[in-house]
């Protein structure tokens, strides 16, 4: 089972959405959650504080989720971090783009705590191997 102390970073420009994700994570027992309002802020936080898991929206100003993903994967300190991409779209090219850039998972809005849990578990499973 996943460590309930996993430190999450939730990245979204819409604060309501950050709150939703935070609440869903809380429902699943994860209370160690920090937030960032776009890729740039997220990257700054990632470089200065320890995190175990990134949950990021795709579409954001300044630095999008996919740009953040690429930056994370290119950083030797951060490249190992699991990265769950949130998006409203389920377009083939989006999914492929996220997968190619190295996303650990992909979740489509709106989702329930159960869906999120399932996606997280899938990722933890892969990590555990």
């Amino acid at each position, binding site marked *: 089972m996943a460590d309930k102390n996993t430190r999450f970073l939730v990245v979204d420009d819409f604060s309501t959405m950050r*709150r*939703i994700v935070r609440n869903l994570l809380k429902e699943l027992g994860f209370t160690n959650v920090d937030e960032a309002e776009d890729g740039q802020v997220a990257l700054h936080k990632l470089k200065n504080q320890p995190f175990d898991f990134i949950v990021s929206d795709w579409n954001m100003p300044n630095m999008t989720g996919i740009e953040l993903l690429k930056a994370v994967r290119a950083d030797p300190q951060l490249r190992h971090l699991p990265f769950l991409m949130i998006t*409203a779209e389920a377009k083939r090219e989006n999914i492929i783009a996220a*997968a190619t850039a190295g996303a650990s998972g*992909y979740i489509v809005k709106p989702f329930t705590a159960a869906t999120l849990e399932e996606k997280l578990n899938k990722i933890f499973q892969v990590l555990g191997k």
Partner: protein
Amino acid sequence: MSEFAGMEELLQDFLLESSELLSDVDNKLVELEKRPNDKALLNDIFRGFHTIKGGAGFLNAAPMVTLCHRTENLFDMLRNGELQLSPGLMDAILDATGEVREMFGRMGQGLMPASAPQALLSALDNALAGGAAAAPAVNPAPAAPVAAPAAQPAVSQGPDWQQLHSAVTGQTLPAAQPQMAPAVQPAETAAQPAVVAAAAAAVQPAATQRPSPAKQAVASAPAQAENTIRIDTHRLDQVLNLSGEIGLTKNRLTTLRTEILQGNAEAHTLRSLDEAISQLDLLVGDLQNAVMKTRMQPIGRLFQKYPRLARDLARQLGKEVELVITGEETELDKTMIEDLNDPLVHLVRNAVDHGVESTEERIAAGKEAQSQVHLSAEQVGDHIVISITDDGRGMNAEALRRKAIEKGLIDAETANSLDEKQSLQLIFLPGFSTKDQISSVSGRGVGMDVVRTNIQKLNGRIDINSIPGQGTRISISLPLTLAILPVLVVRVCNQPFAVPLAMVREIIPIEQASMQEVSGKPTIVVRDEILPLKTLSGLLGWEPTQKPAFGVLMQSAEKSFILAVDSFVGRDDVVIKPLENIRPRGVAGATLSGDGAVVLVLDMEDLLKPQEASAQASRNLELLAL
């Protein structure tokens, strides 16, 4: 019973944040009309709808998801150059934002939004289909609304899109897990259809044709009572700090009290007491300020609704108007911002409808075809001044006077005695409307008199300046906050009264020699201005106990007069407590003075109203001639 049970807080957050986002989108749409190919703008608008859709999905507001989804797709095509913006399309998009705003209104009342009008969805679908460039949006096409295949997801480019969509949206376990594996198997299709598509399909049949599409978004949307406020954490910290310090000072005072009660009243103890109290004085002042600051919001939140309003109205009237906004960062008390909306909507409409000439008239007068209406806010001292300036035809004093006589608001004799400035004030009279035909836009039964009343309720003032042929400027001057009222405390018959300092222009001594009688009423000439003299005791209906020694030169809206009082106590910042159950004439409320005495705060407007409100005409005359 709310249809969002268990999600109320989330709903509040969503509505607050999304409404701001939508206003932003509205303004960007107005911008977009000028620069239809601006990629950054298209991107921002796309993201706006996208974000709202995402949030609405979590709230299960399917109709909103459907509508935003289509609009978003439209912008995706626009930014990719697959579609060109046409006026018809623009109308459909603007209608869509209006509709979203209506949905916010419903959600604000705890109701699930109804489906968007079928005509609007069809118009968006048509545009998405790449077909009819000019989607007939404003007046929905009578063509059968069934035309658009509703259940089909809006953009279907690849044949397996829907499969992929359902594959990824799958909520049950066997649904695809497209993690890591670069090859996403479209084959692993879950049985259930995509959430969005399903929602759309479910809602479609219920779609009812609403009588009128959301045309006047800003005005018609039900007023959402915002009962939450966003505060900069820095400001909250300040409040916390100050209350902490006040706590410390209180401890100090408690210690000193014990010492004094024990009989230790030495000089240095008393000095410490004095110091502690001075410090408390300072801290409480700071705390009041800091608390007040938490209620301050940038007025831009309000202003950002108007470019769209002006644009829609101008288009409807066939005029070219640009609304220029400055000073949107100016801060004002939250409640005032809310109460200012109606008056400002009215003034912006007035400027566009009455102030600005038709394009032909402008060209004939040698002006630019496009007119500018300037909406600005700035802080001047402890006041906020908001002004609306147009470069239109200006007001004609003579025409105003004629109109007022025609309407029976004043008689010819009064009209002749009015100067230019006083004539402009005529528009504030109840029942005054300068246009012969009441147009659908401005003549809604709400006149300038209501605007003025609303501004006065906020302890504000409204002034007009107009130059015929060059334009009109209406300025509203407001106190920074309603919570704390600066007053001048005066004394009459040995009782203190507080009058709002905002109305006080100056204080003059009353000398018998300077008094004159004009048509039987006492007046004083101050710098060539003849001002009526009213004794406060007289207004209160009391017998004067002594001859008034001082006059307070007061100004409210357009009328100035001198209020005669016995003496002064000084100026003070007070918090008005309303009187429960009783409402004496001319009294706004009560407050406590420094020595614990009750001081009545006067409502000058009310006090000045003639007691026997007999004929409307005489009242009007009074209003003007005062």
